[in-house]
């Protein structure tokens, strides 16, 4: 403890010495009357298991959660099963980071419903190409 009381060596007044002696005196009986209560609180606190996980374990769990989310989102984007606006953003992102085969996946504007996508790419267009001019005239399909 530094001697930083005013006057370097402390006050020399006997009255102040007396005051300090009183302020720093040993405990009185009434000051220790709550000892049992304090001990009881300490016991209950010591018995109560901590619900908080250790820091390292919390960090590992958080990292695992982030990794699973990232992998899942990327896979979903690559498979083009995300809602159209999200898929559009995902495609742009995957394009930018150079993920191969993104263009071979379904076009983002077509996604949202796999059945519709297939129908849009291979349904009417393919059928129209295969139809003869006569059949096209019968069915009323335009060229």
């Amino acid at each position, binding site marked *: 403890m530094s001697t930083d009381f005013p006057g370097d*060596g402390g006050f020399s007044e006997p009255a102040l010495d007396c005051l300090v002696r*009183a302020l720093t005196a040993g405990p009185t009986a009434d000051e220790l009357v709550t000892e049992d209560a304090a001990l009881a609180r300490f016991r209950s606190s010591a018995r109560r298991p901590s619900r908080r996980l250790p820091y390292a374990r919390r960090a590992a769990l958080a990292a695992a959660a982030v990794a699973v989310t990232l992998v899942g989102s990327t896979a979903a984007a690559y498979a083009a099963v995300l809602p159209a606006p999200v898929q559009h953003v995902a495609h742009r992102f995957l394009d930018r980071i150079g993920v191969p085969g993104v263009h071979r996946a379904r076009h983002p504007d077509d996604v949202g419903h796999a059945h519709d996508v297939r129908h849009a790419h291979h349904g009417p267009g393919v059928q129209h190409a295969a139809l003869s001019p006569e059949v096209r005239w019968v069915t009323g399909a335009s060229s």
Partner: protein
Amino acid sequence: MLTLCNHADAMGNEGDSFDDVLARARSGDEAGFLQLWRELHPRLLRYLQVLSREDADDVASETWLQVVRDLHRFHGGADEFRCWLFAIGRHRAIDAARAGARLRGRLTAADVDWVPDDHLVEDQVLDYLSTRRAVALVAGLSPDQAEAVALRVIAGLDTAAVARLLGKSSGAVRIALHRGLRALAADPRLRGLQEVDR
């Protein structure tokens, strides 16, 4: 002659074994916690009595509750622990004051003129009376001076620690401490305390 510095140093001398006691308390050892509590609770209570007389016991209980709860997070030695304890006590006292109690419900003249119980032996009476009177005298200072004196003398913190705790400069704390001690030295009631202590 016993000086202020001797008192402050005396409180810091338990540092050698304090780390062991603290480590035991942190590991859940009741004896270690009790030793810690017996060492510091009376000082904490006196400091809180300087701040607020009415709810000092309640505030002290809340302080120890938080200490027990957060003990596993504490890192440091004896001085840091004392500083941590009194900082918690101060914050809880401020919370209590905000909750409606007056922060400076000072000890009144009736407390200074306290009449002891008959069953206490004479030495106990004298110690109790002088301690209560001394706390009452410190509480009678201006708020800044009272807290500086209480933290420096009762809590045993050094000036830098007091300054950090109060959010003031060391110079401001030294001035408050100096003026507070000067005011106490000039207080005629201090002579009565001196007579009781003899």
